[in-house]
């Protein structure tokens, strides 16, 4: 497999500046300290690591929402990347139907496209009469269903999924997993962040472990998951430092 990488991360670091009492005193929290890897076309990459390891920040960087403070990310400018947001942009007072258009537009789907697909989105979400109710009346699971259904119709080259399948009941989770697998089997490149080793093991062709904002050496998926299980077992809390300047 020597296809050209579509995204290349080279020793990237990302710090969040935080106020530290006095306005001229700033502390920096390095969410990502040193991460490098290549993403190739057709990859299904799983990213695993404990809470606070820097996984979500990593997805934001790959999607181009933010830029790293150090290091470089090389991305083909024509590559379209979508971060699967599970109802992050939902307006609670609007109905599900209205939110489909709002959310879809914000995800970058052209308006005509959304309108053409709105029926299939509603069918996929499968939340019945609730589609015409304000989203604030939804349960967490229903929100996730609707969010997934919208994101599913985005046409993209790289799909980034953040713990997406965590919400929703067993039935929906199975359905969503199946649909994502279908996408994976096509030419789509997928990056999944999850704590479910079961899901990672079943779907991913490559797995990268992130600890303390650093990517560990890439092993085979099986070995990486084993190593991760060992680190979590050691039960040492994730210790991160705030650097005060």
């Amino acid at each position, binding site marked *: 497999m020597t296809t050209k990488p579509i995204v290349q991360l080279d020793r990237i670091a990302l710090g969040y500046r935080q106020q530290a009492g006095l306005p001229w005193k700033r502390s920096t929290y390095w969410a990502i300290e040193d991460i490098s890897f290549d993403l190739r076309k057709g990859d299904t990459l799983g990213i695993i690591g404990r809470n606070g390891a820097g996984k979500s920040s990593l997805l934001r960087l790959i999607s*181009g*929402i933010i830029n790293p403070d150090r290091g470089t990310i090389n*991305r083909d400018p024509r590559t379209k990347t979508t971060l699967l947001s599970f109802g992050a942009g939902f307006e609670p007072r609007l109905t599900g139907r209205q939110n489909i258009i709002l959310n879809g537009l*914000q995800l970058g789907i052209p308006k005509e496209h959304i309108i053409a697909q709105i029926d299939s989105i509603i069918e996929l979400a499968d939340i019945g009469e609730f589609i015409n109710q304000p989203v604030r009346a939804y349960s967490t699971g229903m929100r996730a269903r609707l969010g997934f259904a919208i994101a599913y119709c985005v046409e993209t080259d790289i799909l980034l999924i953040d713990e997406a399948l965590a919400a929703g009941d067993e039935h929906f989770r199975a359905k969503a997993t199946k649909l994502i697998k279908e996408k994976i089997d096509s030419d789509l490149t997928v990056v999944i962040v999850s704590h479910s080793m079961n899901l990672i093991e079943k779907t991913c062709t490559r797995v990268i472990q992130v600890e303390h904002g650093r990517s560990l050496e890439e092993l085979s998926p099986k070995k990486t998951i084993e190593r991760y299980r060992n680190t979590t077992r050691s039960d040492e809390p994730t210790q991160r430092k705030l650097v005060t300047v």
Partner: protein
Amino acid sequence: MESSAHSTFNLRHTANVILYRAMAELRAEASRTYAGYLWWIFQPLLMFGVYYIAFNFVMANRTQNFAVFLFTGIVLWQWFSVSVLRCSGSLISTKQLMQQVNLHKTVFPCSIVLVNTVKFLVTLTILFAVLQIYGFHPGKAWLTLPILFALELVVILAFGCFAAMVSPFIPDFQHILTTILHLMFFVTGIIYDIAIMPDRLQRIFHFNPLAILIRETRAVLMYNQMPQWGDLIVPAGEAAIILSISFYFIHRFNKIYPKIG
């Protein structure tokens, strides 16, 4: 420079996002109260009611049309002040969303200005009705109103985007802004005519884009006077400069905003 991620800035799509965000906000706001959309009419009506009572009964015998004079000024002022104030928080309150979707950040202040412009247009019908009742009938000069409103829209957009651009970096700015707007209220000639000021002061007023605009708009509405176009050059120029600077920096900090706030 690293070519700015994927989504090549698509103007039509961006316009759609602004439009739909504004519609969503208007709908959501209306659903918050029992009377809903009716509040857009009630609110300015009640406001005029207060002035009517204040200047016809409480502080009677002032200039006959003071209530109308004041109402005209306040309607134009509120469009500005509410927009700018709301804009100042637009890149802070949307942090969660900004971290999830790759939107051009100018979308947020723009949709807020659009929301308040729609409300202004509704209020305008009340203002027109009040003017009719008081005998200020439309004349030829009224044809210039779209130009004056368009100019005020640009001024609002400029100040709004500026406030949106700055406040994520300086959280205290929102508090300062309230004071600045409060001060501006008194130096913009809303409760008095800036023409009564001494010449020396009037020259300073000429640098306040809103003061000139409100003076001219009021002259059109109440006295059917054609605007003094020459005086509008400075406000237009100022707005254009501030708007360009703000757009430039919001664009530059497009990927910084999701990190802060």
